[in-house]
């Protein structure tokens, strides 16, 4: 058996012995394992890819999570958009949490200030975090928050309450078929994670 001669020629694949066949098998297995590892990594890579994709397209209704400056050039008084506010408590957070006003009419480009009321009904201190979402999702990129309590965590001592403010404006470019925006806040208990 001319193993050595053929080992040199594996790439052009002229093996005539079982040991070169095993070499071939090992090579194929290594390539396939590489695919397995790459696909495992790809699964995790989908996480940032998803975020970037949603960020660019605004598909999942996520609004800006840091403050933006007011940049509208004018106020479009010919259009009125209704902005509705809803709140929801995630599992296990014993707070009262609601908007002070349920809805407001705004002109695109017009800055508005609204507040949300929160009260910690528990007998211990809790850190809350409100996570916003805009519906319809495509409008998320046209809803700009200049100041929002959701940018930071909200520590609230037992029994204390607070009014939290949200300052926003709706972009002049908001597609004309959208006349109502719903801004939803879900409040989470993140006491454990923040400590």
């Amino acid at each position: 058996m001319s193993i050595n001669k053929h080992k040199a020629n594996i790439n052009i694949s002229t093996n005539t012995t079982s040991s070169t066949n095993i070499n071939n098998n090992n090579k194929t297995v290594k390539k396939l394992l590489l695919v397995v590892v790459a696909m495992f990594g790809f699964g995790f890579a989908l996480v940032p890819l998803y975020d970037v994709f949603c960020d660019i397209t605004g598909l999942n209704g996520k609004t800006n999570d840091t403050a933006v400056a007011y940049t509208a050039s004018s106020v479009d008084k010919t259009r009125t958009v209704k902005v509705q506010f809803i709140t929801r408590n995630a599992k296990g957070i014993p707070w009262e949490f609601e908007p002070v006003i349920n809805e407001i009419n705004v002109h695109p480009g017009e800055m508005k200030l609204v507040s949300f009321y929160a009260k910690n009904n528990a007998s211990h201190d809790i850190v809350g975090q409100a996570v916003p979402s805009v519906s319809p999702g495509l409008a998320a990129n046209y809803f700009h928050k200049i100041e929002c309590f959701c940018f930071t965590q909200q520590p609230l001592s037992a029994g204390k309450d607070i009014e939290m403010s949200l300052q926003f404006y709706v972009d002049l470019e908001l597609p004309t078929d959208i006349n109502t925006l719903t801004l939803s806040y879900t409040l989470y208990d993140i006491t454990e994670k923040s400590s």
Partner: protein
Amino acid sequence: MTTDTLDNASTADSHHDSFGDNHDHKMTGIKRWLYTTNHKDIGTLYLWFAFIMFLTGGALAMVIRAELFQPGLQLVEPDFFNQLTTVHGLVMVFGAIMPAFTGFANWMLPMMLGAPDMALPRMNNWSFWILPFAFAILLGSFFMESGAPNFGWTFYAPLSTTYSNGSTAFFVFAVHIMGISSIMGAINIVVTIMNMRAPGMTYMKMPLFVWTFFITAYLLIAVMPVLAGVVTMLLTDTYFGTSFFDAAGGGDPVMFQHIFWFFGHPEVYIMILPAFGIVSTTIPAFSRKRLFGYSSMVYATSSIALLSFIVWAHHMFTTGMPLFGELFFMYCTMLIAVPTGVKVFNWVATMWRGSLTFETPMLFSIAFVILFTIGGFSGLMLAMTPVDFQYHDTYFVVAHFHYVLVTGSLFSIYAGAYFWLPKWTGHMYNDTLSKWHFWCSLISVNLLFFPMHFLGLAGMPRRIPDYALQFADFNKWVSIGGFAFGLSQLIFLAVVIKCIRGGEKAPAKPWDGAIGLEWTVASPAPYHTFSTPPSQQDIDNADQHGH
């Protein structure tokens, strides 16, 4: 390609030298099965394991159907009902259908390729023997304080994280082991097909059966790691404070669905492509014709596999996707009907003007073609975004995927089992009993699943232990069909046991229209086959192309 196959000219010859010591003698008793590296032994283990899991998953379904026999809560608590549906799905997908196909691959691929064994026999042993542990963990969780997984086989976050009953860790570890087993099995299949083909067997001379397993194995290698990734994220979200799917920490539960279905949709083709391979073997045999359109079958199978990667979000039309996304996924999904239609056309064209006989494998194959097509059509209906909003999460979906998985995948497994039982056992099966099995299954399976279409269209949601009164009559019939179908499968068990124990002696080739290298060896297939590769003449005779 040519050199590749020439390579193996002496591979099989010299194979004995390198592996001889593993194969020369069989051990006896339990050790034979624990230590075996023989592809036929491992194939047998996979097939029995799959059948046991099938009966286990079936038993869970019987309890589900008993609860749904009439409205109101009679037998089980809603939470336990959720555990039943979840584990039923997981057991049937990962424990019954997939291992059954791996069993077919192990038994048949080396014989069809003229190879002495699978390429990686020791890994083959491992990939089987870790499976029982995975299912011991999964089924064992029924007896834990927390109960079994109750969040559906799709384990959507946050059901499986924030709202989990505490079974998430068991579930994740079980899935990890199943995934490792599948990946090892798939690597073995790919390496075997690429490196172990007999000299003279080019890729386009391989039986279509081999092609479908080749493509399926690639799909497994591509998506099982993604499943492993997503369950790992689930685990760390639940127990280690990460926030992949938790909005409170900046994650997104909808992203779970994207990653899951990126695995999940190719997964459904993993469960049907081998079925295509089996009926593409049986239908020509009992039509006494070559397979119509062999090459188009290969290309159609590949197209289905490729398209399966870009249709996942059709499971998520109601999550609030933008119109463009819905249209994209709708049209891509509908596109899959084209290669699938090619296949159904080819099977029918193979039968056209053939000399048909209706042995049990053929009966199951014809039933497969008709009933799988019905399942395909309901899939096409579900693909249409506007109407999907009505069908989503109803019994219409349940009807759809049971038509493709039970009357599709499972019926093909029965077709293949009856087709090769003589080769496996050396005996012919009891024809009368097998016909009983077929007709009882055919009638009961339609009684079981067909009314579900109407229940779904009328608005009955899936995964509920109780339902509105207007659904009562149909559910009663569905349950009766379910019990009948469950009992009918015991006939198959009887057929197999009888066939192993004895029966009419099977000739090397019991089906006169069958082609394929496996019929050139004796029945039962000797423990070692193709220690010397088959002749070019035999390979050419086994070519599925028409000549």
